[in-house]
């Protein structure tokens, strides 16, 4: 009797996943994991012989398995129940804060500083400013699990300042962020800073550019969503993660035009409010990643600016838009044309780099900089 029931349970179990995953419609995108899911691999003589088909098939099945989101949460929760406080590259910090791990960066970082220095030496006619933001692993180091460590970003920042070309003004906003650490300046579930954090970075950048930063009072500061679960949650989902808020700073007197030159779309807002209903709500700021865009505003200062940035800039640029009437923004991950050419063609004098340390330490697209 016992073995009959065990047999039945086992058969039903494997049939549940086999038939269930077959019947359930394939998902193109996982909201929870924030990534595209694999399609059924194409069957051909070539993919069969190379074994590629079989690998892709396993990826396809594990992507499209029924109850996938539940299973992932169960896996991470099991890790946590065993006392583990790091899953993938994400630490489970105090107060429900997920903190991205930061490891010895010098391999890629050295190259990236080299590319930027080369650019500075080769183009002395431009005035270069480089805003660098540290990550939550430094600002909230005390929230890391006991004995957990990330590589010291203070040391890394000092190294960058020490090795950056003299033609570049480096603006480090670590101290200002530290002073504001009681405020909500980094997300609990995402690797970015919040717009509050970006406002602090904006102040430091304005000082380096010798322009006056606008006071916080000028903006309508609103919570546009309080249901944001970011990229760190996607890597390490659990059943009971507290959600983040998306904060918007809106200048009631501001008039803007944002031209997304890679897709051809044009918007009169710095924010894409439609994305508040999507999973990755951080894309509300300037519609997320774009190769190149142009922000025009009714700023009194008619000077033009070129910004070379990573995604930390997405919630900072809406603030900077009030200081410069025309800002070109490029992302080297997608924009592989000459930056200096662009500046010259558009008659731009000042170029600003905006980066966070994690990006600067791992991204390999700075080689496109010329």
């Amino acid at each position, binding site marked *: *009797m*016992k*073995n*009959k*029931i*065990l*047999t039945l*349970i*086992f*058969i039903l*179990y*494997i*049939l549940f*996943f*086999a038939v269930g*995953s077959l019947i359930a419609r394939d998902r193109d995108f996982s909201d929870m994991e924030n990534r595209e899911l694999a399609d059924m691999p194409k069957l051909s003589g070539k993919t*069969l*012989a190379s*074994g590629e088909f*079989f*690998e892709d*098939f*396993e*990826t396809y*099945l*594990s992507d499209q*398995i029924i109850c*996938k989101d539940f*299973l*992932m949460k*169960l*896996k*991470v929760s*099991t890790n946590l129940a*065993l*006392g*583990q*406080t*790091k899953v993938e590259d994400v630490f489970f910090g105090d107060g429900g804060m997920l903190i991205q791990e930061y490891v*010895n960066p010098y391999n890629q970082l050295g190259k990236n500083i080299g590319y930027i220095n080369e650019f500075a030496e080769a183009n002395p006619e431009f005035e270069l400013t480089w805003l660098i933001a540290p990550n939550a692993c430094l600002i909230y180091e005390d929230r890391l*699990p*006991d*004995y*957990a*460590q990330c590589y010291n970003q203070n040391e890394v920042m000092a190294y960058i300042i020490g090795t950056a070309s003299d033609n570049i003004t480096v603006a480090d906003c670590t101290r200002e962020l530290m002073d504001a650490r009681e405020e909500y300046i980094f997300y609990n579930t995402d690797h970015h800073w919040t717009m509050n954090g970006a406002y602090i970075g904006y102040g430091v950048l304005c000082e380096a550019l010798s322009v006056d930063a606008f006071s916080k009072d000028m903006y309508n500061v609103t919570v546009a969503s309080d249901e944001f679960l970011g990229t760190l949650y996607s890597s390490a989902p659990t059943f009971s993660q507290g959600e983040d808020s998306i904060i918007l700073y809106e200048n009631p007197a501001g008039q803007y035009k944002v031209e997304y030159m890679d897709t051809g779309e044009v918007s009169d807002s710095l924010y894409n409010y439609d994305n508040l209903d999507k999973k990755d709500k951080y894309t509300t700021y300037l519609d997320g990643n774009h190769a190149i865009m142009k922000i025009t505003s009714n700023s009194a200062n008619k000077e033009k600016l070129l910004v070379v940035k990573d995604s930390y800039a997405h919630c900072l640029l809406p603030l900077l838009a009030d200081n410069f009437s025309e800002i070109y923004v490029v992302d080297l991950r997608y924009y592989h044309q000459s930056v200096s050419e662009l500046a010259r063609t558009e008659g731009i004098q000042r170029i600003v780099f905006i980066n966070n340390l994690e990006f600067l330490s791992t991204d390999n697209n700075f080689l496109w900089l010329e």
Partner: protein
Amino acid sequence: MLFSSITFMFTFLPCVILVYYISPKSIRNFILMLFSMIFYAWGEPKYIFVMLASILVGYGMGLLTDYYKKKDRDKAARLAMIISVFVNLGILFFFKYIGFFTENLNKIPGIELKVLGHALPLGISFYTFQILSYSVDVYRGKAKCQKNIINLAAYITLFPQLIAGPIVRYETVAGQLDKREESFDMFGDGVNRFVTGLGKKVLIANMCGEIFNNLSGLSASENTVVLSWICSIAFSLQIYFDFSGYSDMAIGLGKMFGFEFLENFDYPYISKSITEFWRRWHISLSTWFRDYVYIPLGGNRKGKGRTLLNIFIVWFLTGFWHGAEWNFIIWGLYYFVLLMLEKLFLLEWLKKAPGIISRLYSLFFINLGWVIFAYDKMPALKNAVLNMFGGSGLAFSNDLTIYYLISFGLFFVIAFVAATPLPKRLAAKLLNNKNEGVVTGLNAVFILCVLVLSTAFLASEAFNPFLYFRF
């Protein structure tokens, strides 16, 4: 295909069970053979022909051996057996060892051979040894010649034991190939066994593997003496839970289709001596070498010198079987030395020593053995050993060490306990309950928990390596 994959669990397995049980008994071996070929070809499509060639030679020479034996022409029968042995060992040599030999011969000045490198056909060391056992057993008269090629092919390719053992002898399953009774009783036992093995592999071995991978890649500035010990222990646990988990899954799957295989692991880490360890570790391999190498060489019947040489040969080959690299040979000979020392005097001492001492002694040397096994590059091996014994100036401990202890302490305790017979005894006690409903309920809860957790780890694409690509 791996047992511990979504493809196997939720595509292959339901299909093979369904087709197998709706087919009439007369074609079930054929069905198994067919599915086993698909199982093998999955991920290894080209090398299936190598395996088929091996099977054909084994089959043909088996028929010839049998034919000449019946005619009392022993020499001819012997020749047929030897041809099968040579061809199959030749194939094994060509695919597994030729790269190693050419590479090392090239180190001798004046020799310049072309280094032939090709991927190792999956499971070749396992199925070759099975065909050899068949050929030799037919010659010895221990097994009847299999006239039906489908039955023989079903035996060799039988997917439960095809790629990672156990090395099932032909004589073990000869009768079952012709006639076996599948039943709910066996299937239910098979489910228990398979799920236990799955849990050992997916929930314990994989996490140990991840720890080993992370720690063995630490730079000298992060590493400590304690961490290098944790690293080696993680590997010792990984290889046991991975390998014995695979054997459990194989034995369980066998039962689902009415086969009874012999046990392959018997709690090796509770051994009180190295001699005992090798009676409990990968039993099908050590008995294979005993019956097909040691005893044919004369065993211990030809004087002390010859016995020593025979044992040396067996351990050299045991090491070399695990992979075509020097570290595996060193690993085999390391056990030769330990076993000889035990034979000389150590075993007597160990018998008198308290259990804790003899167990710690065994674990220490087993663990050190796995360090040799884990690193196939000599500088890395030397470094790992030096790190463990403070020979490279590492700090004893640091914050990362404590972080690992906090993160994985509980997991290690669970793994340690799971490597002993305690859980089995506990289960026996619980299942001794007179109330069948309670027993069934407990068992069902166990099965479901392990299945769901294993599925969760597999679906999350957590670290899931296959350790036997070199075997």
